[in-house]
């Protein structure tokens, strides 16, 4: 497995060899463009794919299968992309993606490292770097182990949903639904410690306790 949620940020540093990925991407390039000026061809262009909700890119006629996955809340994070290019049909049924998949985890990692360099918004956080960074904060295991109270999270979430949409759509403000709980907690602690730079998020996170962050992670992680 490419990464467990717990280690997502950490292992993502070494997600793969983007240069080798560029060569491997030639397998994909007959259908997909990526990079400056990329346009939709047989498949949609792949700029900004990291963190985008499935079937969310305007103007491309997605298959019913991908559209359904998008409505179900599929977001193209590292794990989902990895699963998809390992075996597209295993993750989403009925798509036009005529590709058998990469069996070798290293091939997948390298292609994803290459694609990630064209995504401004890994994890859909606008100020994060285009390529993955080391885990931003070291949290004691007991902090990460807190099981959040989703009911409390639901109340607290009402502060978030003045900007972030509950249905996971993202227009100028990123989606925060369906994150693995630990990724969510790590990101919030990074804002709280002012390691991530966004002033609104620093302010909002600064007064959340460990339990409150866990509660929000539990609530948003489980949203349909």
């Amino acid at each position, binding site marked *: 497995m490419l990464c467990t949620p717990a280690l997502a940020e950490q292992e993502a540093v070494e997600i793969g060899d983007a240069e080798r990925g560029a060569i491997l991407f030639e397998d994909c390039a007959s259908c997909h463009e990526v990079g400056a000026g990329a346009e939709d061809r047989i498949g949609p262009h792949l700029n900004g794919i990291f963190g985008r909700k499935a079937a969310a890119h305007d103007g491309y006629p997605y298959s019913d299968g991908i559209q359904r996955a998008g409505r179900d809340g599929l977001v193209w994070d590292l794990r989902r992309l990895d699963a998809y290019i390992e075996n597209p049909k295993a993750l989403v049924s009925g798509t036009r993606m005529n590709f058998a998949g990469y069996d070798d985890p290293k091939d997948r990692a390298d292609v994803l490292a290459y694609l990630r360099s064209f995504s401004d918004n890994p994890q859909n956080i606008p100020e994060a770097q285009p390529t993955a960074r080391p885990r931003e904060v070291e949290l004691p295991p007991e902090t990460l182990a807190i099981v959040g109270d989703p009911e409390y999270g639901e109340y607290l979430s009402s502060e978030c949903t003045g900007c972030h949409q509950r249905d996971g759509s993202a227009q*100028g403000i990123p989606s925060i639904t369906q994150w693995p709980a630990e990724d969510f907690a790590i990101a919030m602690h990074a804002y709280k410690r002012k390691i991530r730079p966004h002033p609104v998020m620093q302010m909002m996170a600064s007064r959340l306790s460990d339990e409150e962050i866990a509660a929000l992670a539990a609530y948003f992680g489980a949203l349909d």
Partner: protein
Amino acid sequence: MTLNRRHFLGTAVGTAAALSAPMVMAAGTPRVVVIGGGAGGATAARYIAKDSKGEIEVTLVEPTRSYYTCFFSNLYIGGFQEIGDLAHSYGGLAASGVNVVHDWATGIDRDAKTVTLAGGGVLPYDRLILSPGIDFVDESVPGWDLSAQNAMPHAYKGGSQTELLKAQILAMPEGGRFAMVAPPNPYRCPPGPYERISMVAHLLKANNPTAKILLVDPKEKYSKQALFEEGWQKHYGGMIERIGPDFGASNVQVNPAEMIVSIDGVDEKVDVCNVIPAQKAGVICERAGITEGNWAPVSGHTMQSRVDENIHVLGDATDQGDMPKSGFSANSQAKVAAMAVRGALTGSKVFPAKFSNTCWSLIDADDGVKVGATYEATDEKIAKVDGFISQTGEDADLRRITYEESLGWYAGITADMFG
């Protein structure tokens, strides 16, 4: 209450529900009436209906069928939004279980706990939520009253007034003069008048570049002042003149028939005059007898009126402490009130009140700035905890992202309000 057929049937078929919620069914379904379908009222109605899952009957009284947000209306003036982009219907609220009544609330009987409607209806309530927004203080700008709002629009409630003001600006003669009389504190949307000046300048720069803007402002200082002044110099050099109180702006009157603004006795003839008068709580608060001075004092813990604990007041109409009067604030306060109302009526869990606000303003295309803060409830007031503001000299990328973020916020808050 009268035990009508619907209630009777509801009780009969709802036996299982009655067993799980005996308190509720024993007393009949509690009723909440919300007056005003804006950022405070729509949010509160939706959250109570959604979270009480039928245990509370929620009625929203709102005269208009299409709500035009006042927030983002300046962007319509600047040409960055269509008027239709600002319109929202109440279908989503109805689908969430809110009984939407399009009528004016004309009176409140606090002893009988009823709301009277202009159409003759009477709505009983267990809890009342008032979110009526603002009305204007008569004679705060001598010479102006509501009968002059077509000659000199306020455009400080979204909709037809906003359209009128923009049409007047577009019809200005070449090299003509636009004037704004800015309001004294406190008023809805502290950066609003200055964002409007920016958007008028943007519109004129493209359509009538020799036109001038006169800003008559009774306040010494204003929100995001350094950011606006920097932006005006950068984008609209020489177009905007601000007259503050030290040059007579606290002594202003207008003559709408002659299109004259008199500043400390000196007459200025203008082509368009946007008068934003001093403000007060929507008049229904006064009629309910819950105002002190111009506003309705509330407790920050629950947004309950300090005069009547069965009434919660939200948003611009309140005197609550440190939060600015904004759609964001009203939306934030609505969630605290919704939680408190549910707690009181159904015994649901109540958590400590938390509030936040962020106000984005657009200075020119892709040049957005913001200011925000978090707040908590103390016994005395809603008190500021922490805050931030955009900095002068920020690079163009950050300003563009800030603007794009404001578009995301608009989509987010309107979805949160209307479902």
